[in-house]
C-alpha cells in the first residue's frame, strides 16, 4: 500500500480527499450524517490549508444550484448531502447532469423521513439513480477516500463530463474511525491535474445554457446524453486501473468473493458487504460455499460484469437497504433482474430488504438469508414479495 497510514472517520477522509483534490468551490449545507465533511472543509478553508471559495448557502437546493454555476464557470466543485438534503436537491440533480457539470458530491446515505431517522438506508442513493449522475458505493473509509479522488478524475475526463456521487453509509462509515492509507499531496496533484473545462461560461463567447427545448430538439438532447452516459464505463475502468497503479489498491466495477463453484450468491451494496463476506468465510470453513457480489460502480449499472459475476450461481439473494412501494422489488433487485434478462443462463432471484434506518445486519441475519436462498433453490420457486430480514414480526 502506498501512502501514509492514518486514522479518520469516513467524513473526514472524504473532506481530506477533496482538500487534496484542491477543489476551487465548495457549496454546501450541513445535514447529518455528512455534516463533518463540510465542517472539516470549512476548517481547511478558514485555516488557509485549502484555497477555495466556501459558499454557505441557505438550503441544499441552493447548494447544488451554486455548484452547477461554479462548475460551468470552470471550477472544480465539491458538495455533500444526505437523505432529505438530497431530496431538496432533486430537481437540480437533473440539471447538473444534463448541463454536463463535473461536480463531485459525497452522500452520507441516510433514510428518508418519516419517521425522522438519521441512520443508514440507501433511499437517497436510489432516489438519484435516474438523474444522470455517476454513482459509486464505498464499502469502508479507505474506499470513500479513494473513490472521492477517482470521482474528480472520472467526472472531469472529457470523454465523461458527468457529475459523480460517492456513497458512504451514514454513521457506519461517515462516523466510524478506521485506518486508511492517504496519498502524498504530490501524487494526488499528478493524478488530478487542473480541470480543463469544456464550453465554460465566458462573456466573450456567449452561449445559452439550459434553454427552452420543446418537441423539436429535446429528444435529440436526451438521446445524446444517454449515449454519452452509457459510454463512460471504459473510462471509469481506465481510471480505476491507473489509480490502482498509483495506490496499490485495485478497484473494479463489480467485486466478487467466493463465487467460484457457489450455488448461493448474496448481492449487496455498501458497508454490509464486509459482514456478508465475513459470514461467507465462516461458512467456507465449514465446507459451505456462499458467493458474495457487491458493486463499486452503481451508475452506469455494470450489466456485463454482473452477468459474468453471477454466471455460476443457481440462486441469488439481492439485498436492498431500501423499500420501493409498489414496485416488483426494491431498486437493486429491479436493476439486477433487468440486467440478467440479457444473460444466457439465469439464476433464481429473490429480494431481501434489510437494515432500514440503520438497523444492524448481524452475521445471524446473513445466515438466515443463506438458509432462505437454499430453501428457494430446493423448492425451485421464489417468494412473491421481498423477504424482510431483521424486522420484528417476521419468523
Amino acid at each position, binding site marked *: 500500500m502506498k501512502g501514509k497510514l492514518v486514522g479518520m472517520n469516513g467524513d473526514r477522509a472524504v473532506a481530506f480527499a477533496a482538500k487534496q483534490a484542491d477543489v476551487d468551490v465548495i457549496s454546501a449545507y450541513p445535514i447529518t450524517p455528512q455534516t463533518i465533511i463540510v465542517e472539516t472543509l470549512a476548517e481547511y478553508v478558514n485555516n488557509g490549508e485549502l484555497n477555495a471559495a466556501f459558499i454557505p448557502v441557505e438550503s441544499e437546493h441552493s447548494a447544488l444550484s451554486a455548484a452547477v454555476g461554479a462548475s460551468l464557470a470552470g471550477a472544480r466543485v465539491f458538495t455533500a448531502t444526505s437523505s432529505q438534503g438530497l431530496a431538496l436537491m432533486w430537481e437540480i440533480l437533473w440539471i447538473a447532469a*444534463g*448541463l*454536463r457539470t463535473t461536480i463531485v458530491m459525497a452522500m452520507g446515505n441516510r433514510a428518508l423521513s418519516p419517521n425522522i431517522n438519521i441512520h443508514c438506508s440507501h433511499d437517497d442513493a436510489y432516489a438519484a439513480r435516474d438523474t444522470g449522475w455517476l454513482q459509486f458505493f464505498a464499502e469502508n473509509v479507505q474506499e470513500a477516500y479513494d473513490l472521492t479522488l477517482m470521482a474528480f478524475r472520472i467526472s472531469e475526463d472529457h470523454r465523461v*463530463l458527468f457529475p459523480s456521487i460517492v456513497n458512504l453509509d451514514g454513521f457506519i462509515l461517515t462516523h466510524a474511525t478506521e485506518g486508511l492509507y492517504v496519498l502524498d499531496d504530490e501524487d494526488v496533484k499528478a493524478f488530478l491535474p487542473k480541470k480543463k473545462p*469544456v*464550453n465554460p461560461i465566458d462573456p466573450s463567447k*456567449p*452561449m*445559452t*445554457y*439550459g*434553454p427552452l*427545448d420543446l418537441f423539436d*430538439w429535446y*429528444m*435529440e*438532447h436526451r*438521446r*445524446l*446524453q444517454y*449515449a*454519452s452516459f452509457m459510454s463512460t464505463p471504459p473510462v471509469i475502468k481506465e481510471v480505476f486501473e491507473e489509480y490502482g497503479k498509483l495506490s496499490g489498491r485495485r478497484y473494479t466495477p463489480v467485486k466478487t468473493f467466493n463465487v467460484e463453484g457457489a450455488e448461493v450468491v448474496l448481492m449487496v451494496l455498501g458497508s454490509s458487504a464486509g459482514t456478508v463476506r465475513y459470514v461467507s468465510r465462516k461458512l467456507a470453513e465449514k465446507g459451505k460455499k456462499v458467493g458474495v457480489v457487491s458493486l463499486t460502480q452503481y451508475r452506469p449499472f455494470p450489466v456485463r460484469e454482473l452477468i459474468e459475476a453471477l454466471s455460476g450461481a443457481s440462486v441469488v439473494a439481492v439485498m436492498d437497504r431500501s423499500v420501493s412501494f409498489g414496485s416488483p422489488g426494491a431498486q437493486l433487485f429491479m436493476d439486477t433482474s433487468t440486467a440478467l434478462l440479457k444473460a444466457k443462463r439465469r439464476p433464481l432471484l429473490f429480494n431481501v430488504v434489510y437494515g432500514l434506518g440503520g438497523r444492524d445486519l448481524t452475521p445471524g441475519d446473513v445466515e438466515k438469508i443463506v438458509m432462505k436462498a437454499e430453501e428457494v433453490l430446493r423448492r425451485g420457486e421464489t417468494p412473491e414479495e421481498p423477504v424482510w430480514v431483521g424486522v420484528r414480526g417476521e419468523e
Partner: protein
Amino acid sequence: MSESIVLKLKTWKDLPIGGVIPEPSTSLYNKTGNWRAMTPVLDEKKCIKCLLCWIHCPEPAIIRKDDDSVKIDYDYCKGCGICANVCPVHAIEMKLGV
C-alpha cells in the same frame, strides 16, 4: 449569421454537449410571425409618430425609422394587438388572418 452552427444541426449526433446553444442571437431564426391569427395593418396617413406602439410592442416587431415613423416587422409580429390598442389615433387596425 451565415456561419451559424445551429442551422447545420441535423441529428442528435451533431449536437454540442450539455444542451447549450453555442452562439448568440439564434432567436432570429425563429420567425414567430407565423404564429399570428390577427394581423396589424398600419395606416401611415393617420400616424402622428408618437411611438407608443414602438414602446409597447413586446416582441419588438415595430421598427422605428429615422423620422420616427414606424413599420411593422411581420417576420416576428405575433399579432397580439397591443399596438392597435395603444394607438391614440386608431392608425393600426387588426385584421383577421396572416
